[in-house]
């Protein structure tokens, strides 16, 4: 049974104790994402300042994978520059086999780990759930693209 591989403790921890939870009144950008097939919802609020995500707030509801993924993502991107976040996002997508072709893995920084996010690797074996894990990232991308600053 690979279920324990899917539902690792760190995922359940992020699901039950989501980091950076909440709306940001003073957000400079935000986006909402929905997975129409299963109903997962994620909303990302950002304060972007000088090309850097200085604050992030996550709300939404859905399965443990989507919500844990959002929480882990928030932790990973908070304080990072937009360029750094792009790199992270590419590496995440590569890990989840979401990239077409071999794009994304930034060979120049092999040492940079994905941290807690790596716990989501197990999702790859559950193709229907990959969309759940990816939802926060596509929503983040939309928020960043919509950012005026």
């Amino acid at each position, binding site marked *: 049974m690979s279920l324990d591989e899917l539902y690792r403790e760190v995922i359940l921890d992020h699901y039950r104790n989501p980091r950076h939870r909440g709306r940001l009144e003073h957000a400079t950008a935000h986006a909402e994402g929905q997975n129409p097939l299963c109903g997962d919802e994620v909303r990302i609020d950002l304060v972007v300042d000088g090309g850097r995500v200085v604050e992030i707030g996550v709300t939404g509801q859905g399965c443990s*994978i989507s919500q844990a993924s959002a929480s882990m993502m928030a932790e990973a991107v908070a304080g990072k520059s937009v360029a750094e976040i792009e790199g992270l996002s590419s590496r995440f997508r590569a890990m989840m086999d979401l990239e077409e072709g071999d794009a994304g893995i930034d060979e120049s920084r092999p040492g940079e780990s994905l941290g807690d996010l790596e716990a989501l690797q197990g999702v790859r074996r559950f193709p229907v759930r990959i969309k759940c894990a990816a939802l926060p990232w596509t929503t983040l991308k939309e928020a960043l693209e919509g950012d005026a600053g």
Partner: protein
Amino acid sequence: MGDLSHLRDDFPILSTEMNGHPLVYLDSAATTQKPVQVLDAMDGYYRTTNANVHRGAYALAVEATDAYEGARAKVARFVNAATPAEIVFTRGTTTAINAIAYGWGLDHLGPGDRVLLTMLEHHANVVPWQIVARHTGAELVYLPLTDGYLVDTSALDGLLDERVKVVGFSGMSNVLGTIGPVAELAAAARSVGAISVVDAAQMVPHMPVDVQALGVDFVAFGAHKMLGPTGIGALWGPMDRLERLEPAEGGGEMILDVGLQESTWADIPHRFEAGTPPIAEAVGFGAAVDYLEAVGMAAVRAHEEQITAYALERLATVPDLTVYGPSDVSARGGAVSFTLADIHPHDLATILDQQGIAVRAGHHCTRPLHRLLDVPATARASFYVYSVPGEVDLLVAALEEARRIFGVA
């Protein structure tokens, strides 16, 4: 009372595996599996009888027409329609309800008029009325539910008046299992001159239904939830009601004459069946009702009460599990929706899937109901003639496993 487990041999898919485990199919409220009798009827139709129906002047077309009209007669007999002509074949329950909403609503609804529904309706009995309301200016009002998950007919007092032109309600809820208060709502509709529309997608498959005895104007149901194929359903109405319904779809076969600006309609039911109908699907639908009649709908219902009672009893042993729906099996069908602790239903479904158990997770096309229940989603196990108690045991064991995986204390 009947052990129906011998029926399983008729369903080839039930001896397949899912994720390395024997398939435990507990999603019959979404669609049922099909017996070989139904599959062979359709395959045989295509191999020996296939032709377009009506207007055919050759023997094959006559046989195809007889097969198609014969299926109509079977479905009519199955629900005790007064004549086969009272059965209109549609693409499914959804299309049948749309046919009423458009065919009656566009001409008879106007600003200030109301469509009275219940809070447990499937989207199929909500969205068509919203669309027609947008075109006509009508509005929708909803009957609430009691704490016991029944439609709260006491609220009719405040909601029923002459503005209500349509009363639409589910014969059996696909989420709560709740059997609708059909007689009461039919009488309510009549008392204000409204038409009554029963979404019987879950009702006709799961209990004996005599449409004439219901006292309602229209009944919609579909084949694929009662052992039949996808692509076909039926709309029933008494002749005098069908005469007041305009055809929603236009096209071939439904006309008497076509002029350049206007046309006249063929007889009932053909005026409601524009274009080439789902012919092979009708043959399959006919075979499905033959199968159910051979089992006996009283036996189907009894079996379902039994297995539902067993499921409710066993699920009650799982800690932190909440069932949404009446606990009295005489007031409900076999769709059992639940949540387990803080485990999201999609996670539950994935865990069960890995053990070969098919349940549905989500809002089951009932968003308003889920908002009322204040849960974004539920997991749902649902049964049919081929379901056996051992499958309930496997479900319960898998739920225990889910508790372990999620570390629910």
